[in-house]
């Protein structure tokens, strides 16, 4: 009978607080991850939005190609003009 009482006291005074403490730590760790994940998701969304202009690089590529073609034409013409002037 006495051992049984001791067992009850151990359950209530030691086991229960230890279980609550450990589970509380696990819960705190899990809940602390949530805001971090939400912040990362927001940053990823903003980063994705910032890259919307990347599609315009195709236009930039075309513009650069046309510009260099124009420069090449001007260079060829200048070559002839300077030859004539010389």
């Amino acid at each position, binding site marked *: *009978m006495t051992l*049984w*009482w001791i*067992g*009850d006291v151990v*359950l*209530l005074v030691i*086991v*229960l607080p230890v*279980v*609550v403490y450990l*589970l*509380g730590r*696990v*819960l705190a760790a*899990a*809940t602390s*991850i*949530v805001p971090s*994940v*939400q912040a*990362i*998701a927001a*940053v*990823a*969304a903003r*980063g*994705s939005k910032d*890259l*919307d202009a*990347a*599609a315009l*690089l*195709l236009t*930039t*590529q075309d513009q*650069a*190609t046309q*510009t*260099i073609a124009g*420069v*090449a034409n001007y*260079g060829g013409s*200048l*070559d002839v*003009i*300077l030859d004539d*002037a*010389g």
Partner: protein
Amino acid sequence: MVPVLAVAAVGVVMIVAVVLIVAALVYYLVSVILALRAITVGLDEVIAGVSEIVEKSEPVNGIVTTINQQLDAGVDALEGLLVKKAGMADAVGLVEGLYAGAAAAGFRNFPESTAVTAPRTASSTLAGPCSRQSSTTSTICRAASERP
């Protein structure tokens, strides 16, 4: 009769303790499950955002490489034309007049241009090669002096 009551009391206390422990387990584990579900939802959003980033940035490397190749070709052509028409010394002097200190870097396709001593120039007046007004450089100097 008394021992029976004592045994019953001990048993009730034990049952209460076990119930409390189980209740604590249920409460905290359910809370952890809810937190993990929130994390899963957040990670789904992260994966979607990162996938968009990867998708949008995929063609950037090739496009920028192509643009750089085009610009390199343009620079090569212009440098070659300048050196051909003005001569190495005047070309270096003209570039130095336009961009002070650029002569030290020389032309990319003419490594020997770094060894050329640029004619004495003033960066704002193009006094060096343009002051001599050779027939070849006069047109270039006139165009350069009219730059914005």
